[in-house]
């Protein structure tokens, strides 16, 4: 996995709560058996005026001029500023894959849906929860100041604004450790293979009905 330590980038504010995973990446794009290439279809139904189809050249499609990411000033944004309950809905990891493929590295919101939050960390994407009033303030600043950038320091657990104001955030130690070091989760778990085996042996004795599919 790609490591994440520090990131500075342009902020795009998406002023809408309950952004669901169907919005982030609509179902017709879930048919791919790959992990990459979802970027052009990120927020497909909001971003384009026509209906998106898989395997289509999106660069030729009519853009929705009202959608925030289509505004020239947010081109190249890598920090997404969002509202509450971002990523609600399905478990599709295609959602963080699409955000990542588009170029986002950080998503800041007052709250996230559980599964989405978790899926981000598996893909080197950092979801940051900040208090609602802080998020409001960042929205105001990002909308007013063109070229507004934020600096995120995962080691120090801080978000720093261009004026030098700093906000700290919480992230659990295990996820932070994996992200900072770009660790493969599976590899970390397999270090405990012996422990898993002994748990399993014990279970075979106490709950034998859970082993061996009888049909």
């Amino acid at each position: 996995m790609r490591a994440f330590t520090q990131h500075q980038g342009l902020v795009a504010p998406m002023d809408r709560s309950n952004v669901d995973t169907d919005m982030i990446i609509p179902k017709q794009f879930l048919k791919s058996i790959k992990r990459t290439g979802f970027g052009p279809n990120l927020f497909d139904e909001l971003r384009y005026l026509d209906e998106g189809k898989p395997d289509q050249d999106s660069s030729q499609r009519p853009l929705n001029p009202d959608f925030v990411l289509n505004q020239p000033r947010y081109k190249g944004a890598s920090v997404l500023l969002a509202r509450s309950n971002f990523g609600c809905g399905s478990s599709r990891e295609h959602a963080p894959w699409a955000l990542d493929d588009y170029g986002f590295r950080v998503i800041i919101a007052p709250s996230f849906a559980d599964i989405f939050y978790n899926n981000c960390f598996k893909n080197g994407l950092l979801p940051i929860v900040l208090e609602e009033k802080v998020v409001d303030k960042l929205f105001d600043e990002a909308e007013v100041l063109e070229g507004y950038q934020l600096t995120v320091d995962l080691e120090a657990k801080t978000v720093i604004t261009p004026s030098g104001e700093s906000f700290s955030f919480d992230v659990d130690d295990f996820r932070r450790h994996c992200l900072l070091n770009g660790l493969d989760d599976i590899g970390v778990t397999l270090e405990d293979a012996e422990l898993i085996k002994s748990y399993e042996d014990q279970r075979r004795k106490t709950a034998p009905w859970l082993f061996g599919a009888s049909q």
Partner: protein
Amino acid sequence: MAGKTLYDKLWDDHLVKQREDGSALIYIDRQLLHEVTSPQAFEGLRLANRKPWRIDANLATPDHNVPTTDRAKGIEGIVDPVSRIQVETLGKNCDEFGILEFKIMDKRQGIVHVIGPEQGATLPGMTIVCGDSHTSTHGAFGCLAHGIGTSEVEHVLATQCLVQQKMKNMLVKVDGKLGKGVTAKDVVLAIIGKIGTAGGTGHAIEFGGEVLQNMSMEGRMTVCNMAIEAGARVGMVAVDGTTIDYVKGRPFSPTGENWDAAVKYWRTLHSDLDAVFDKVVELDGSEIKPQVSWGTSPEMVADVTGNVPDPAKEEDPIKREGIERALKYMGLQANQAITDIKLDRVFIGSCTNSRIEDLREAAVVVKGRKVADSLKQAMVVPGSGLVKAQAEEEGLDRIFLEAGLEWRDPGCSMCLAMNADKLGQGEHCASTSNRNFEGRQGFGGRTHLVSPAMAAAAAIAGHFVDVRELLN
């Protein structure tokens, strides 16, 4: 010390390792796989040269992409080549790794969350995962069932464990007695309407109270299915006699001595009387009316006797904007009566409501009646090949066909429209599924979530009606 909740018990029984940083390794007893969220996981295993940890813990079936007509052709019947590749890929992966798969032509094929319980592959006390957020369904059996992402599918395949943080405990208690024509679906929609789509975030919800105790297993599955729409990854109901009766005699269920030992353990799977919950929500079941969602989030629901809300009366600006946006997308007027919403299509199916009881509930309503001429389509999609066979044995297919509904083959179908079944732009659909997000059932489609009985009644009337009037 306070007693344990059901969630605490399931957690403790599956804890392999508690790490110092607060995360934990939880052992997974069963993984269900389908074609959409597994290909990248199998690919990951191959790239890292890893093998599945325990093959017999896995069970697979294609469901999201399968067509609901012309199934005699098997995989060849999938017209969309991209969908076909996905279904074929699942087949190849299962063959390569030796994982049991109910393939498209197998009578046992169906929506993962229908076939798990049907086969007894879902047993009380298990930890269950699937790359699908509606895995919470299995919690109806007193299981700890999580929806997971594809990286976690790979993680569980490779290690049989999931890295988890312990969640908080929440109890949703529904007491009283449900009125006639009020179903499990109405109960869960009412709960979501009350607590909101983020109401359960970070919590494992246990559903309890008199209403749940009196509910069938299929009803409990409907409720737990939509825990995720209330923001909770996990929904659960305590094990009781109803659970044990349901599980008995199913293909994967234990027998003989193992059965006795299992039942003894299962009987302990309920929250202790002195267990403490972080959050408790109570509802009076006798006050719940048939529900209809009017907006683009499952919390946007109203009683069938009620009206679409008026954004002008909402004080919170973010909420007001949400209502305005939803009304615009849905093509509805503020204060419009729910029963004035006209429909274009009706969909009875999905992992929420495609089991035999759901189909019976709908059949009672349409029996001897005809679907309104104004509808473009009304269809019934059973949750599995076995549900279909059972319904046909009971003659439900005849009732639906005579009333003018289509009788399809099993799969997810119009729940998310990955196959050919979908809504056209601007069309209103009464749907027994679980999500009414924008575009969920087709680009520009407008979904109204309801129970099977309410969907059936809407099919007859061509607009929403209070099903209780048809049942008298």
